[in-house]
């Protein structure tokens, strides 16, 4: 059977807009939503409005964004990490406790150490899951409490501090224009360093493979255990970054500062188009979703809604998002 039929050359095809839209439709939608919300937020107040508002939004969203990205990395690999929140608290209190008397440069180096520590802590969680074969959700639930205890042990009452310049990193410093708080480039750099690089190489692909179909991944010769541990380590990195962001934003350490981020991160991941079943999505969607959810609360408060009510409404929205996500998984299975 010799090939006589002419094969159509489809190798160098241009940018396929329709396919891009189909594949990334959800993410695009989240960014549209973010844009609409931002416009609404801008128009919903008569008060003078300036760079300060953008900055306070960025400060609020920064830890959330890191938590969401960390959670996304784990969920893409087919797991789930409920210890995100308390690991953030640990990073927060450790940073605040020891940075008080440090110079700015020392504080930066110390931050690097904490991020590494976060990776180790995440890897530990992953290793426990792989070795004991207890479900991810149980192990990370137990770790949630263990880290919460550690955070309390480090700093029982809120306190500590950081060099002023460290706080300025996210609260005051801007890049170029006053409208671009440094918090945003920090997120983007972290995203690019920790994710874009990994996404392009084999271990990053393995993350998707393991999350998508562990059996197929194993048959493709992938080290499933190492990949899962790696995903948790990556999640730990992001959690630590989130904790540092909390420290920089508040200048304080508080053992409960990370509590809300466990659930919020899961919601942002779902809203960001990452399937809880694993294997699908990226970090860019959850990143935007974290900003969306922060904006919802900020807008409500601007509209005169009581702070606590805003929290309740945000929480309800989060539960609804997760419920719809659950339905979506069901639909997909059918």
């Amino acid at each position, binding site marked *: 059977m010799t090939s006589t039929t002419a094969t159509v050359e489809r190798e160098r095809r241009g940018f396929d807009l329709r396919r891009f839209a189909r594949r990334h439709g959800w993410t695009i939608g989240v960014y549209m939503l973010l844009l609409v919300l931002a416009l609404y937020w801008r128009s919903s107040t008569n008060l003078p409005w300036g760079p300060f508002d953008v900055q306070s939004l960025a400060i609020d969203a920064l830890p959330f964004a890191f938590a969401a990205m960390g959670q996304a990395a784990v969920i893409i690999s087919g797991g789930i990490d409920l210890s995100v929140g308390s690991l953030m608290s640990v990073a927060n209190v450790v940073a605040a406790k020891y940075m008080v008397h440090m110079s700015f440069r020392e504080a930066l180096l110390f931050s690097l150490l904490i991020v590494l520590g976060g990776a180790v802590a995440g890897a530990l969680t992953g290793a426990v899951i792989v070795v004991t*074969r207890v479900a991810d959700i149980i192990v990370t639930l137990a770790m949630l409490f263990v880290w919460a205890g550690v955070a309390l042990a480090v700093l029982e009452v809120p306190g500590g501090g950081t060099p002023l310049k460290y706080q300025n990193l996210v609260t005051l410093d801007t890049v170029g224009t006053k409208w671009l708080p440094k918090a945003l480039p920090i997120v983007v750099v972290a995203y690019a360093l920790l994710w874009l690089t990994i996404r392009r190489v084999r271990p990053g692909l393995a993350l998707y493979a393991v999350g998508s179909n562990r059996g197929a991944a194993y048959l493709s010769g992938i080290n499933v255990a190492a990949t899962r541990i790696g995903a948790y380590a990556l999640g730990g990195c992001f959690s630590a970054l989130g904790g540092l962001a909390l420290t920089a934003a508040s200048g304080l350490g508080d053992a409960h500062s990370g509590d809300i981020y466990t659930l919020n991160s899961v919601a942002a991941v779902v809203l960001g188009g990452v399937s809880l079943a694993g294997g699908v999505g990226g970090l860019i969607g959850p990143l935007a979703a974290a900003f969306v959810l922060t904006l919802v609360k900020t807008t409500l408060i601007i509209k005169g809604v009581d702070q606590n009510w805003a929290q309740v409404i945000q929480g309800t929205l989060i539960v609804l998002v997760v419920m719809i996500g659950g339905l979506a998984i069901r639909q997909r299975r059918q």
Partner: protein
Amino acid sequence: MSSETTAHPETPPQVAAPDSRFRQGRRLLGDNPAIALTFVFVALFVATDIINRAQEGRPFLTLAQVSTTLLFAAVLGLLSAGQTLVMLTGGVDLSVATTATAAAFMISSYGAHGSLVAILIALGVGLGVGVVNGSGVAVFRVNPLIMTLGISTVTLGLLTVYSQHRFASLVPSFVNKMGSERFFKYIPYDLFVWAPVAALIILGLRYSGIGRMIYAVGDNPAACRLAGVRTWQILLFVYAACGILSAAAGILLVGFNDAADLAIAGPFLLPSVAAVVIGGTSIFGGAGGYSGTILGALILTVLDSLLTILNASPALKQMLYGAIILALAALYARAVSSD
């Protein structure tokens, strides 16, 4: 139903044989948790007695202390009763503490309307939270941990708002008496709530249709479906029951404390899970029961006294509870996979 089942990837089955004494211990724990747990409970009580004598120069092993332990354990016992039901179906309810707090708030704010009204409202709130949890888990198939954690956050937020508008006034004397006083000097009144509930749950799990189905859903949901069981009904029931039981725990708790605040039941969340796990109920559902949980609650209550005597920080307690859950989950998981 394809006949070519895909192989279990992960790693090949464990080859290393654990040493036999360890395995025996595991067997004992797995097959007959009640005996082992009673032993642990007594041993712990005696150890606490010895330490208390050494540190404070007072005995701990007294009738009064036993009575106090029961009094304290009732709240945890009721909270972990709901938790047991939920965990038997393979889920977990992280909103039990918040639900109890909400019930406590209802009692103190409606106390003026009489204790019956207050109690009914409190139980109604518990039922409401349970039904919301249940419909999320049963109908929308949200992961139970996430659903209940979310509902817990929302409920706590609502309570915060509520507490700003309506000040907790007074706890009715009946509730107060139930939660803190004793009958004949040694029998806590809350036992009159806990004991019947415990009997109902233990017997109901064994001798009622719903009890059987709770085990069945936890053991193998796919098989339940094939047997015609509509699993959502069972799950909804279980979460609703858990809500009511949590509310009952909250009522006793506010009776004991004589005032409600937003953090009243928070510290009980983790012990409620730990008590169930200690009691031998499988974290994946389908096996276990409430009698083990009762012992788990008693053990944790004594452990708490011991840690208090030893001056342990809340942080240490928290870590310890987390570690206990993890260790026991791993142990029971191995017990299941080894035979």
